[in-house]
């Protein structure tokens, strides 16, 4: 029917239930409108659900689209399926890499780099609060077994090692629940009286950790760095509960992803690799035009 004529380019994200990926989808949607492309928005229900994403990729390819935009949820696991898919359609990768040479193009934030940015930001914030880059810090990861989160942790630890005075006293992995993040942070504050910094490496954990900082009124002593953003976190950033946010450019990933895919499907020449970057946004620089745009993406 009608769908047959118009070009279809599905976009497959890691977890449709998270706001970050909703921004990616929003970008893709916008691109679809601008370019007159039909953009099915697909994705697993959790970043840990590898089998789920493979299944969705299989189904998407079965739909005979012009191209597929995908954010591979796990480096190794998605490799073969993507090779397989690439036999019938061009594949555009966004956000994270996968073990495949078959990508036509690739737009990504390097999550390891994101972790490094967070570490630097944390050190700076601690210096701002305590006057020196010294003290105990903690890392809270939302879920185990999630590629991008592991990479952030990796980058964070590597970079932190460059600050001999900063000691990583706790490396906690939660269950994806804000409440758990809140409980863990509260208990960390109880257990480590001279805790000066926390890195909550995704949206939900940052919300929980932020709540704990606010609840215990320690914003002036403990620096919290979050990853990604939404109203809640921006609020925390404004009132100083959160020292800084590491913000990627999901909207652009989505938009350019679809744009590139369309080009690729028309056999046009496309950029093989684009880094969309990870930016550190603090209360100080949050009002700069570029950052302001990043902080309130046009989701709806």
């Amino acid at each position, binding site marked *: 029917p009608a769908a047959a004529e118009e070009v279809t380019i599905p976009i497959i994200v890691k977890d449709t239930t998270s706001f970050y990926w909703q921004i990616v989808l929003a970008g893709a949607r916008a691109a679809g409108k601008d370019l007159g492309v039909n953009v099915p928005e697909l994705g697993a229900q959790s970043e840990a659900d590898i089998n789920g994403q493979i299944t969705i990729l299989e189904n998407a390819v079965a739909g005979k689209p012009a191209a597929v935009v995908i954010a591979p949820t796990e480096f190794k696991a998605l490799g073969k399926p993507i090779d397989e898919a690439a036999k019938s359609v061009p594949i555009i990768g966004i956000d994270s890499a996968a073990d495949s040479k078959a990508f036509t193009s690739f737009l990504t934030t390097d999550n390891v780099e994101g972790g490094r940015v967070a570490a630097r930001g944390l050190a700076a914030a601690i210096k701002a609060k305590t006057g020196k880059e010294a003290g105990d810090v903690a890392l809270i990861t939302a879920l185990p077994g999630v590629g991008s989160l592991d990479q952030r942790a990796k980058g964070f630890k590597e970079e932190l090692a460059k600050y001999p005075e900063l000691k990583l006293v706790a490396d906690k992995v939660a269950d994806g629940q804000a409440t758990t993040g809140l409980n863990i942070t509260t*208990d960390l504050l109880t257990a480590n009286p001279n805790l000066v910094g926390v890195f909550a490496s995704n949206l939900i954990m940052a919300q929980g950790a932020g709540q704990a900082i606010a609840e215990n009124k320690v914003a002036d002593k403990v620096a919290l760095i979050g990853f990604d953003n939404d109203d809640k976190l921006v609020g925390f950033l404004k009132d100083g509960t959160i020292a800084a946010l590491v913000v990627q450019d999901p909207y652009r990933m989505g938009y350019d992803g679809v744009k590139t895919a369309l080009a690729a499907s028309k056999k046009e020449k496309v950029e093989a690799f684009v880094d969309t970057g990870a930016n550190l946004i603090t209360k100080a620089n949050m009002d700069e035009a570029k950052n302001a745009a990043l902080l309130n993406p046009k989701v709806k």
Partner: protein
Amino acid sequence: MSTVDAASAKASQARRNYSFLFALTLLGLLVLLWVVLAIATPNFMSDKNISNLLRQGSMIAILAVGQTFVIITAGIDLSVGAVVGFTTVIIALLINAGVPVWLSILITLLVGLGIGLFHGFGITKMGLPPFIITLATLTSLRGIGLLITNGSTISIENDDFTAFATKDFLGIPSLFWMVILVAVPAYIFLNHTRWGRYLFAVGSNPESARLSGVRVNAVIYLAYALSSLFAAFVGVLLATRIGIGNATQAEGWELQAIASTVIGGSSLFGAVGSVHGPLIGAFILATINNGANLLNVNSFWQRIITGGLIIVIVYFDQLRRRGR
């Protein structure tokens, strides 16, 4: 005959002592955990941490009490976690829409009630197994919540409301007061009203209950309505605690609630359960997590230990019972 008379009298006597003892035992295990932790880490017994602990256990505790009503009727309610998440969204929307807090809470609770009644309908009228109907709502509710919020988080713009969870009263956290607020009526209801007794009767032998003129269907409606109502109430509390409405929150809390209930001595085959049991069960679980965090136990070890302790605790409880 007098011998038998005496015998059975003794039997019931024994059972009464026993149930008292059992409550004591679980409580004993909880206290034991506390003593161990108090020795292991100085911070554990600090007022601050105790009130943290009380806060952390409260929500599961309330869910577990609601779940107990259902389990006593030999049913199960898998939807409570989803109801919590869903209701955080509802109340967040209402409050941000400027609806007065008391009214928002009332409406949210009514939504919960409605969900429970739907479960009752599915079980009594459509003849669906409780497991299925509540699993179905679990799935659907998360979907609806995500649809409403488009997967994002609604941050609640009302500081009085969000401040509530952090307040204390007489040195006891407000959240724990909410547990008391729920547990006392729940206790009276379960042990001192006819409907409470009917829950047991239906769980024990629905046919016999029916023959005695008990309106079995009404009892089932009641059990699930209460469970969902309590879940909605927890949704409100969660919203005040994390200050957001988000449909994916409280994932897996149904299992924690059921675990607390069973640790608290309820039988999934029905007709056995109490109000104090699930409360103690919930705080045992909360203590394990709180302690593990204070001792900075590796998160992975934490899971292993939790599993192990659940086995140990329920095993000792079993021993007591066999002791009957």
